[in-house]
């Protein structure tokens, strides 16, 4: 770690310490896995504060409003953010998915138009990829976009769209060539959410709450100028930045994981589970596995140039999703029979939320099965079935 990095760390730490104890003290620890809709207004305000502090788009090029920060510095930011108890980020779709996509594939006009809103923390984006018939198999997208003059008219349904009910924009994978199938004939469209043709319905989940939504496009419209990349080239555009999704955030995420595990250990100590041979064994294995994840991430970042390989992204997803899901179950087992009851009307404890919500970890963003396919075929080179 260079001296410059240590200065950068001090800068991040100082800024967060000041902001999170001051005006935004109330957002500390809010949001996060399974509590995505908590205190949305305050957290949106916090995103704008992050933006005005220049902490969004850290790694983006300076000419596009970023800081051009190194991978190491981005990691430092995520780590310090997690250590400071910064609230669950609402802008990760904006900053880590659509932003980099526009940077890589967008026109100059698109960059001028869309990047500033992301960097300022004002534009909230949601992801329009999954459909009821296109879950693990994203190339099965059936949402159609038909060109009418300068506009695309969209019809179809997206699902698992988190934050759609508050998002300003949705980046949508839609079929612009009606005769096409699979990866061909898809386009990557930026669609404004505030229009009559867009309806958002919350999905009630296993937790009883609704972080996720269905989004219905019924003659929704967006200008052709809002297409990123060529018509029919949407698959390449969408996949081009998928590895980006994780990577730098991993080490920060792990600090959150460590905190969750510490909490479970604390519960186990208080409740007596730490003295149980079986639960103690599971806890220590979780503790070891978290270290393996951390060491793996450290190694990845040491060897990474400016990005993380597909293998490492798949590997990391499989690793953390499975670990976190198992921790969720361990947490309720540590609580024991007291975890049988919830508060009225169905108000879950953090452990119960973790137990239930972490089941989505191994499904969304590429299920464990999809990650295993990727690793087996693209990394190990095993033949397709």
């Amino acid at each position, binding site marked *: 770690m260079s001296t410059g990095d240590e200065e950068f760390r001090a800068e991040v730490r100082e800024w967060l310490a000041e902001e999170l104890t001051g005006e935004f003290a109330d957002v500390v620890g809010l949001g996060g896995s399974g509590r995505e809709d908590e205190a949305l207004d305050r957290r949106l305000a916090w995103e704008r504060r992050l933006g005005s502090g220049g902490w969004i788009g850290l790694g983006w090029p300076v000419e596009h409003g970023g800081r051009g920060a190194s991978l190491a510095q981005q990691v430092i930011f995520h780590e310090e953010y997690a250590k400071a108890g910064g609230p669950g980020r609402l802008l990760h779709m904006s900053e880590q998915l659509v932003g980099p996509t526009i940077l890589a594939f967008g026109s100059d006009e698109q960059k001028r138009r869309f990047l500033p809103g992301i960097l300022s923390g004002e534009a909230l984006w949601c992801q329009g990829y999954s459909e009821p018939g296109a879950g693990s198999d994203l190339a099965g997208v059936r949402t159609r976009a038909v060109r009418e003059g300068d506009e695309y008219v969209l019809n179809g349904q997206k699902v698992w769209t988190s934050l759609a009910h508050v998002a300003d924009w949705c980046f949508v994978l839609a079929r612009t060539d009606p005769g096409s199938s699979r990866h061909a004939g898809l386009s990557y469209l930026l669609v404004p959410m505030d229009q009559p043709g867009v309806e958002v319905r919350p999905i009630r989940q296993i937790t009883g709450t609704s972080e996720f939504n269905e989004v219905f496009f019924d003659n929704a419209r967006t200008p052709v100028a809002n297409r990123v990349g060529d018509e029919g080239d949407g698959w390449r555009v969408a996949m081009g930045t998928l590895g980006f999704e994780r990577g730098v955030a991993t080490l920060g995420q792990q600090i959150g994981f460590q905190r969750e595990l510490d909490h479970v250990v604390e519960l186990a100590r208080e409740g007596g589970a730490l003295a149980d041979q079986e*639960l103690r064994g599971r806890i220590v294995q979780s503790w070891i596995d978290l270290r393996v994840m951390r060491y793996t991430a450290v190694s990845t970042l040491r060897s990474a140039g400016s990005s993380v390989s597909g293998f490492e992204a798949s590997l990391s997803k499989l690793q953390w999703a499975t670990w976190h899901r198992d921790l969720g179950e361990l947490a309720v087992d540590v609580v024991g029979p007291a975890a049988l009851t919830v508060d009225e009307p169905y108000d879950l404890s953090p452990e119960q939320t973790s137990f239930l919500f972490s089941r989505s970890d191994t499904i969304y963003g590429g299920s464990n099965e999809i990650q295993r396919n990727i690793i087996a075929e693209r990394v190990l080179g095993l033949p397709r079935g």
Partner: protein
Amino acid sequence: MSENEDLRDEMRKAVADFLRAESDRRAAMDGDHGYDRALFRRGVADLGLGGLPVPERFGGLGLGFAEAAVVIEEFGRAVAPSPVPDTLIAGTLLSESADAGTPGEPGEALLARLAEEPVAIAVAGLTETPGRGPVVADGGGLSGVVGAVPHGATADVLLVISGEGDDAAVHLVDPEQPGVTRTPRRALDHTRRLADVELTGARADRLSPEGDDGALARRLVALARIALAAESAAAAQACLDETVGYLKVREQFGRAIGSFQALKHRCADLAVAVHGAVATAQYAVRFAITGEATDELGDDLPTVAAVAKVVGADTLMRVAADCLQLHGGVGFTFEHDLHLYFKRGKANQLLAGSGPALRRQLAARL
């Protein structure tokens, strides 16, 4: 034997048809009682579920634990919210006491009532209550706090276990008395409401014969664990069946996802687990009936019951968890029923002796 098996097959079908035709699980679990009280009444009236184990001389059907287990399995398969399973266990225990001549007058009266009218019985004291010891029985009645009593807030009668080990005893308690305070608790498992029951010198009728060294309480615990094993195994079977059906029709990448070998193998492993859990529960039911002190492996009933409970609940939990993953996103929605099985699995692991606690006890036998 085969005559009984025919009878059990008929009962299985009758209960399954009844639940399929009449049970609205979603409405029931959100209702005031947490179960459908009218359905419960009809089940007692039409199918004789309440009086099933009650000896004929009290007006019951005079059937045994094997038939009760069949009913419990069907309620498990449907994850139906209902006090029927616990009522059947209590009825079985009371009937056994009657056959042994030791139920006492209140026990006999309750048996007659069970055969006659809808009576929901809840069993209190099966599940460890964090931070609390067992209920104390002394001259002044029963005192203590019991958590996680299934359908405890709405039951008409409570069967309460006091003490522990050789001092454990079973009591009948009328919940409608000043000495009993019941606090309904919303449960993680939507299909089985729980209650905290506080006893402060509650009047009670002791069912355990004096000097039985805790035998009746041990029997109750064993029957309850075996019942959980039976319902868990049946629920796991239902969960797997539904999932296999889904995998045959759900397409991704242009083919039914059930044709992907990784998913097929996972289902095969689950099928093996389910088959084992079903066999284990059935074995335990039979062993509870034969009444022999130990089986050919030298295990006694509490041991077999503990094994069955652990295996059944673990299997349901594992199967439901894997089925959730196999369903992808749709299994994560509240509308889909999978999460009911998933939550039931965790509840059954924690109720009436958690997995870690029971395995610790079993390890002590080694």
